[in-house]
């Protein structure tokens, strides 16, 4: 790929793929922006007309908007903290030579293969159900009143469910990173008089910083759009207690049949995602250099 000729040939060769991908992204985005500027309600077909930023104003004035915004950030932040901290601890644990290591590793990774709807339903009906759930059984066994997770602490419960799904991902990435740590470095630190805790703090953690960055970035992208878990467990409720931005957009466009309002919400979600992305890249993106 050195000469002028081969470079221009390369550009021509990859252009069909680039054009296809660009169209794939641009067309839905432009349509969403376009819809968001229309009054477009499925119950009143044929009455679409341009209303400017009215949809945005209505979406913003919706009392559920700020709740949804906060819930989105709490959900993303909560799951990130749990999965990163838990992932590091699990990865260190799995890195130890233990009997049956292969099976243990597969078991740990298993939750990632369960579909979000399925895992949320399992959690809802088999664990968190206040009448027949396992947690209720435990509570009753020790003489406590069963706790109704999904109505008493809906957002925390969803954070728990989503964390359970994403913990394997974080563990997997962090485990591979830990395994690439040079053992001589650890031995050098041991010779230098570092305790196990200092070795973790000064050697392992800095070594993991890049992997942690990758985990945070990738998970954030997916966690901003958590939807299925909310739909099958709490339906965003009680009230708006577990409604995030994605769910709010869904409620607007498919429960209220307001495509225009939903599109406006979608555009707001895109903007929020970009703001989060910029913050993340500023804060931790430098770990990816060098």
């Amino acid at each position: 790929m050195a000469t002028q000729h081969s470079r221009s040939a390369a550009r021509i060769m990859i252009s069909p793929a680039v054009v296809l991908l660009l169209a794939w992204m641009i067309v839905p985005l432009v349509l969403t922006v376009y819809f968001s500027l229309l009054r477009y309600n499925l119950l009143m077909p044929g009455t679409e007309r341009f209303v400017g930023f009215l949809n945005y104003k209505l979406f913003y004035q919706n009392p559920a908007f700020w709740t949804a915004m906060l819930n989105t950030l709490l959900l993303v932040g909560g799951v990130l903290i749990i999965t990163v901290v838990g992932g590091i601890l699990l990865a260190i644990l799995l890195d130890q030579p233990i009997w049956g290591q292969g099976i243990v590793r597969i078991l740990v990774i298993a939750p990632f293969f369960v579909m979000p709807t399925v895992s949320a339903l399992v959690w809802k009906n088999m664990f968190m159900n206040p009448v027949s759930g396992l947690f209720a059984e435990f509570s009753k066994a020790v003489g406590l009143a069963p706790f109704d997770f999904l109505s008493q602490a809906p957002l925390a419960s969803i954070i728990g469910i989503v964390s359970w799904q994403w913990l394997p991902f974080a563990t997997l990435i962090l485990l591979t990173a830990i395994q690439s740590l040079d053992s001589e470095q650890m031995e050098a630190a041991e010779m230098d008089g570092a305790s196990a805790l200092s070795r973790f703090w000064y050697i392992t953690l800095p070594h993991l910083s890049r992997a942690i960055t990758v985990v945070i970035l990738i998970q954030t992208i997916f966690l901003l759009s958590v939807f299925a878990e909310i739909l099958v467990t709490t339906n965003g409720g009680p009230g708006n207690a577990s409604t995030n931005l994605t769910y709010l957009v869904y409620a607007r466009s498919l429960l209220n049949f307001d495509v225009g309002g939903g599109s406006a919400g979608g555009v707001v979600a895109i903007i929020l995602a970009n703001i989060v992305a910029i913050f993340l890249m500023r804060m931790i993106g430098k770990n990816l250099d060098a």
Partner: protein
Amino acid sequence: MGRITLDKVTKKFGDVEVIPPLDLTIEDGEFVVFVGPSGCGKSTLLRLIAGLEDVSGGEIRIDGKPATDLPPAKRGLAMVFQSYALYPHMSVRKNIAFPMKMAGMPEDEQKRRIDNAARALNLTDYLDRRPGQLSGGQRQRVAIGRAIVREPAAFLFDEPLSNLDAALRVGMRMEISELHKKLDTTMIYVTHDQVEAMTMADKIVVLRAGNIEQVGSPLELYRNPRNTFVAGFIGSPKMNLIDGAEAKKHSAETIGVRPEHIDVSASEGTWKGRIGVAEHLGSDTFFHVHDTGLAETITIRAGGEVGLHHGDTVFLTPQHDKIHRFDSKGLRAA
């Protein structure tokens, strides 16, 4: 102070005994080199001394105090690793400061020692760089700096020069030797390169399969190898070891003659042969001589520039008083 005593130390990995019972005393201030072919247990022995591996039996004493069960950090030894094992996310300064920070040393004392070490090792301009921005030789010096600041009872080097190119290796070899003269601290150095062993050591320990074959000063080993293994291992090019009828003439099972102890002549000598490969280095010339009537190819070293080439016929005469005689077990015959 750094007198290290190994008393019947053994090491087993599972059922495999890599170090059979081994006794060794390393005197304070000595530069000891463990040398041997790869897999001979020299690195394992060093790691046993460092405390990075547990001994399976026997006792290690440092300055007379039992150290067998002490963790590495408590033994007062510093180690320089083959891969340098620098902490990549820390600056050179922080790398060097790390052991002192772990020991909770006051900041100003830390700074003083870092500055001293940096000056001694020519690292002053690089203190704020990361290891990734340094050359191999500089990284090596940082690793040594990190060892020096602890003022250890002894330094342990695990093949520290094997990742450097040939020219740098010679330079670092001298720097380490000078450092030893300056600090006068015990140093234990592991290498598979007998040239490093010969040039640096006060005392060489030749190892094979976990056994000590011979301990002695470089010239002792050169002059009086205890067996054929040491004879073949020490010295470059290797000593010519000759079996058979020629050895019988000297009433030995095997005789050894170093390449530099064979005289070359174009007209007369004990063995007549034909030159195979001739290596002209300018300062030395090495000939590999075939067809001498002996089973072995004879290597000889002729000083300086010699006008003999591939295919020439030469006569070789071993210097009589420099012939080493070995018995059927490969041990030196008196």
